């Protein structure tokens, strides 16, 4: 691996934006994490004929109603939330109008505007759902373009779709663009709204928990989805220093791998997942002893949690019992294509606040998942960096290391 700040420019996080089941805005997100997160509720789709319809849903009052369209395409909740979170992130970063105008946007989105297509199928032309009113093609993944249009950003606009790891890959791509000198500032993130097809498929595969999302719990039955949007402004350290911006964190390293094993199940050996963690550390110029906390992929799917626990124990060895994990999905659900961006955003906040909030309580930890999930009370963040894992169908693995921004500029 030749990328990384040793071979290019350092990348810092200077702006954050979020909409989640915990509310609109990053302050609401952080307060919600400190308060123990949210609970799932049934998705509001009467056409969703399936046993389990529970999700960690963005409160309806926090789902923006604008922009209603991009060109001829009616926009569902996912792209609209992306626009709102993007506006928050660029405002948080203090980007002026000229900078926003040239901003590249790189988002990780799998289902994108699927909610519009599903509404059209359920209601048909003339129904309650937006129908487009024309005969033109409406692509499904228009979220990144909706953000570009809303910000008036004429830089390159790219959408990647690596399923539940999509926005983790997008963050790595955005960082590569900055390190290689293609761009000084890149807006990255992800956004997904509720989708009937996604829920239906996971019902069919028996991969949903009927109670709540409880990764690493002995009684977990599967995952529980959530929706929302998470956006990050990534910037070269030089650019941030020039603007006088105060970074939340440094995106110090990221690495990818692929199991090439099975369409839906992780390789139980975890060989490639371990490799991506080790390479991300190498790219960051850090070792395992520098990691003070982990935001795991941790979906609540039985095999995923066992394999990730095994991988973390292998990589961190004797430190594992003292390495706190912050199990984000237990608080906001599995936000699918947004999960990687939410993980990075959360890691930046852990570093910014130098604390790891208490995890959502476990009923009984799975002995096959020997990781430390601090309960009841927060713990101080003791290391220099936080590791974020994001995994997906097809064996796609991305690990991102965020570090304190001190000395990055």
């Amino acid at each position, binding site marked *: 691996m030749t990328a990384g700040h040793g071979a290019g420019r350092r990348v810092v996080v200077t702006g954050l934006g979020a909409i989640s089941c915990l509310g609109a805005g990053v302050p609401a997100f952080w307060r919600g994490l400190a308060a123990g997160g949210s609970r799932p509720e049934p998705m509001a789709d009467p056409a969703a004929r399936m046993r389990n319809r529970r999700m960690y849903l963005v409160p309806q009052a926090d789902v923006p109603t604008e922009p209603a369209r991009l060109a001829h395409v009616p926009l569902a909740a996912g792209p609209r939330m992306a626009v709102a979170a993007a506006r928050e992130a660029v405002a948080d970063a203090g980007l002026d109008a000229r900078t926003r105008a040239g901003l590249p946007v790189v988002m990780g989105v799998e289902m994108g505007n699927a909610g519009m297509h599903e509404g059209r199928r359920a209601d048909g032309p003339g129904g309650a759902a937006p129908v487009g009113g024309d005969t033109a093609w409406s692509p499904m993944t228009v979220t990144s373009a909706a953000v570009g249009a809303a910000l008036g950003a004429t830089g390159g606009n790219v959408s990647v779709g690596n399923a539940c790891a999509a926005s983790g890959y997008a963050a790595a791509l955005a960082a590569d663009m900055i390190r290689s000198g293609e761009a000084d500032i890149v807006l990255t993130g992800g956004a997904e709204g509720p989708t009937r097809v996604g829920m239906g498929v996971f019902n069919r595969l028996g991969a949903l928990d009927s109670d709540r999302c409880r990764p690493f719990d002995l009684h977990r039955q599967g995952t529980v989805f959530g929706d929302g949007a998470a956006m990050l402004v990534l910037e070269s350290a030089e650019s941030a220093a020039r603007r006088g911006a105060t970074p939340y964190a440094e995106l110090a390293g990221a690495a990818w791998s692929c199991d090439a094993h099975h*369409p839906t199940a992780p390789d139980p050996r975890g060989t490639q997942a371990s490799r991506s963690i080790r390479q991300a550390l190498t790219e960051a110029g850090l070792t395992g002893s520098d990691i003070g906390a982990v935001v795991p992929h941790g979906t609540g799917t039985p095999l995923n949690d066992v394999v990730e626990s095994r991988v973390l124990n292998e990589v961190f060895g004797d430190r594992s019992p003292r390495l706190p994990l912050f199990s984000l999905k237990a608080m906001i659900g599995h936000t699918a294509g947004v999960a990687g961006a939410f993980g990075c955003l959360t890691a930046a906040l852990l570093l910014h606040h130098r604390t790891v909030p208490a995890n959502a309580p476990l009923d009984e930890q799975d002995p096959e998942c020997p990781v430390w999930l601090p309960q009841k009370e927060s713990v101080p963040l003791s290391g220099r960096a936080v590791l974020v894992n994001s995994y*997906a169908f097809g064996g796609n693995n991305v690990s991102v290391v965020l570090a304190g921004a001190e000395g990055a500029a």
Partner: protein
Amino acid sequence: MTGLDVLGLGVVLPGADKPADALAVSAAPAPGWFDVTAALPGRGYRRLPAACQYLLAAAGNALDDAGAAPASTPAERLGVVVGTNNAGMALMDEQDRTILDLDADGISPITAPYFAMSLFASRLAVEHTIHGFTLTTNSPRTAGFDAVQAGARALACGRADLVIVGATEETLPDSEPGAEGSDIGAVALVCARATGAPNPAAYGTCRMRNAFLAPGVAPAVALDETWAALTADGPRPRHVHAVLDDSPTGRAVLDWVDGKAAEVSVSPAGPGCLSPMRHVAALLGAGSGPDRVVVTAAAEGNVAFLRLTNFPDNHPQLHGSR
């Protein structure tokens, strides 16, 4: 600027047997135009979604065409980037209608995971034991070109040594507005990092740049800057192939492109990201020629330029030694 040297080409397109014919596809493919049992002999292929079959077959052809490089590259140094817009749309439509008409238990478990369109690239990784990475791009219409750029960047950043770049599409279901004329088939390129010098094992080099036409922003500024970045080095491109639809974005790009090269040609772009990639395959497969640019755009604002620099006819396929 980072670029890719194309070592191998493969296509699966209705009416086109080889890359050089990739622009002569059938407007209305006959039923059964793709014979999966002939293209992908063996078990486990027949029940895959069609766009997955196309991608596997096109990538297999491209790998065969690339000579020894893929086999000599360690699995952890191989990557895959696939662009698609509609590969899983027909399946998702079927799954959703099953939920609406019956319930989710009626969904076929075999193809169920392919509602996530990144599974198409992941299946290719399984097929060829690729551990470096798989990445799916899905921007409207520019996804194939985005795949080229992402592949080039990944190699430049050291994330792999060799990458399969592809695009695959399946006809939209009839219920989707604008389904007529949908892209169908797949194109695959096996690529190494471009060095800037003619590569005797390669057809040529691809370099990509993108822009976004935000509403209310004069297109000339964004497109001028992108064009300047793409053409700053090397000879002025002789020909611009514009692959566009009739959207306001498409018309703006068409107006802008006028006069940018000695020759400008325009082809219609249907739903999907494959038509621009067919141009890339055809122009590379036809052998040496002047520098050319293919530009494409989507109604949503995405615009992408891909510059092709064909090498002298060194590739074994072009001078007949393979």
